[in-house]
């Protein structure tokens, strides 16, 4: 196998590493941020990262299923954002609070 330059030949692993990096950043956001909405955004970031790897696999394995999956993930992500924000808004309207630590005290 001829030696390839990782800077000029872009392969599957490039996309996967990029996806992993974005995913880790999203996860760091989920772990470290306090604002509920930023948390939700970090989750969207993680989902996007996963989408990149889906499409990359789809391309490099010559299989369209990966793109279908991305389609589904997008739908679910949008649904999740809709419900998450609806919850956030109704909590905010009531308590004027978006700090994630505040929700420790919520009870049924």
């Amino acid at each position, binding site marked *: 196998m001829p030696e390839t330059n990782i800077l000029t030949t872009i392969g599957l692993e490039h996309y996967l590493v990029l996806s992993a990096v974005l995913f880790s950043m999203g*996860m760091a956001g*989920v772990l470290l941020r306090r604002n509920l909405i930023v948390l939700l955004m970090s989750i969207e970031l993680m989902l996007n990262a996963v989408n990149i790897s889906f499409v990359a696999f789809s391309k490099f394995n010559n299989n369209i299923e990966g793109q279908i999956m991305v389609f589904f993930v997008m739908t679910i992500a949008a649904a999740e954002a809709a419900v998450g924000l609806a919850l956030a808004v109704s909590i905010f309207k009531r308590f004027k609070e978006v700090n*994630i630590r505040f929700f420790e005290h919520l009870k049924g």
Partner: protein
Amino acid sequence: MSHQALIAILLLSPFVGFLLNGLRYRSQNYVLAGSIATGAVFVSFICSVMLMMDLIAAPADQRRLTANFFEWIAVGGFKVNAGFVVDQISSIMILIITGVGSLIHLFSIGYMHHDKGVTKYFAYLNLFVFNMLILVLGDSLLTMFVGWEGVGLCSYLLIGFWFSDAAKAAAGMKAFITNRVGDAAFIIGMFILFFSFGTLNMYELNALAPTTVEASWLGAATLGTLMLFIGATGKSAQVPLYVWLPDAMAGPTPVSALIHAATMVTAGVYMIVRLNPMFVAAPNTMMIVAIVGAITAVMAATIGLTQYDIKKILAYSTVSQLGYMFLAVGVGAFGAGMMHLMTHAFFKALMFLGSGSVIHAMEGEQDTRLMGGLKKYLPITHFTFLMGWLAIIGFPLFSGFFSKDEILWQSFASPRGSVFLWVAGAIGATLTAFYMTRLMALTFWGKSRVPKEVHPHESPVIMTIPLIVLAILSVVGGFIGVPHLIGEYLGHIPNYWAEWLAPVIKTLPEAAAPHTATQEWALMTTSVTLALISAFVAYRIYTSGKGTNEAIAKAFGPVYNVVNNKYFVDEAYFGGIINPLVKQSQNLWMYIDVNFIDKTTHVISDMTKGAGSLARSFQTGNMQQYAMYIGLGVVVVLTFVLMR
């Protein structure tokens, strides 16, 4: 159209109707709701007719249309398809269900129009039809059981339809719980059959049924069928589980007509006919079936003598007639049982709808003591009711005559019949004639006892049309299965019914004792004469005004008391089973539970609590901490995978 598509439409049409009405259940537009529901069932009826024509066109040995929609359950060797089958037996049933069902739906539009929950009512009714069709068409016992439970649920919902009345809600509960007892036995029966024969598909079961009859009481076929029969006693209101049916009259009257007379309660009979080879192989079960049927027929008829509520009389009559059907299948006369199922569906639905018309006219009054002389106010209802009355007392050449006399004759002549069964049947027929005439006399004939403030009026056209159609069917319905003996004299009418069912009915292995036509004529004449005499007696007693409560109670003394209180069966159940059960449960709780079980559980729960409080320290409610645990878990797993 392919028959798969037809079966799919047949099944789904009522379900779509249920969804359409169920999703807008608050609406009070009774015309729309009724049209949707009636239309849905009518579509099914048309499908049934088309399927029936396909069947008739097919050669006699290939009359079976199947539709396997998908594999429902597959666990190891246990496979159940969502498979539905239309053959000689189920085709009759779907015609009855959808045909009589659409008439009753139509009637309901008129009957329920003032009700607030009319849309909900129609939704339930369609759901019932859907479940009943599943019950009837399912090709395996499990599919049938789905419908079996489904109709139980709908029955519960509809009996307790006016649930704001505590008594009516309780009636629904009673029906449901009594049915559960039977259902448990049904499930056990399925276990036994599956364990022994390795399948629940009814065709496979029938093919696997033992060819030699089982003499033992503990054979697989005997035990399995016995358990299934106990299930049937629950659903079909036989002794000892019949107690729910009279109470079920708390529901709207069309419901009583559809569910508690024409269709659901006959499910047990249908199930036995469906599995007839299996039952034939178990003579002991069949003996039990026949005895239970005969006892039910007589006992319910006697109770019917003393009732005054118009619907209660019809309810006990239904129980009694169901007893006849079980008597028929118990002696191996499956064809006669099915025939009586059909004619009963016609005339009992007719009479329930007629009683509904009466109740409608009486503005909700159900007590026959406050009726009388309604003939002149309700001419159409009276006339149609009269047809039903003639059919049920077995007046010659009316539909009930053919089916009932065939049953009586078979109970005597069949290799598994006996003279005692015939006697019980004849007594039942005599009593039937008596109490039905009594009902007619109290309601329609004689002097009017209607309170002044009530002004009876004939029902609207939408309610009388179903009555008329059913009356016609009650009159002519019997000619489809004219016994050979009578057919000779009526221009050699062949017995279409027997020919139709012959391929799917297993003949009894025992050789039939020789009987002569003279015997048959004699028995027939005897029973008919007895019935006519008792009808005449009842007519004289109750139209002359002598048949007051007190007079009869005095004449019969304690017997009347026992019968009037329905043989104290409800009380016996409470005193003998329910109360001791509650008491013993309390004892169990007080001694064994508290001292032994609780102590053990406390130890276990303390351990769990300790573990829980340890785990609770992790459960802070801090979402980010949870996320961190997940992340750490992923790290651990990934490390493990990579290091491996």
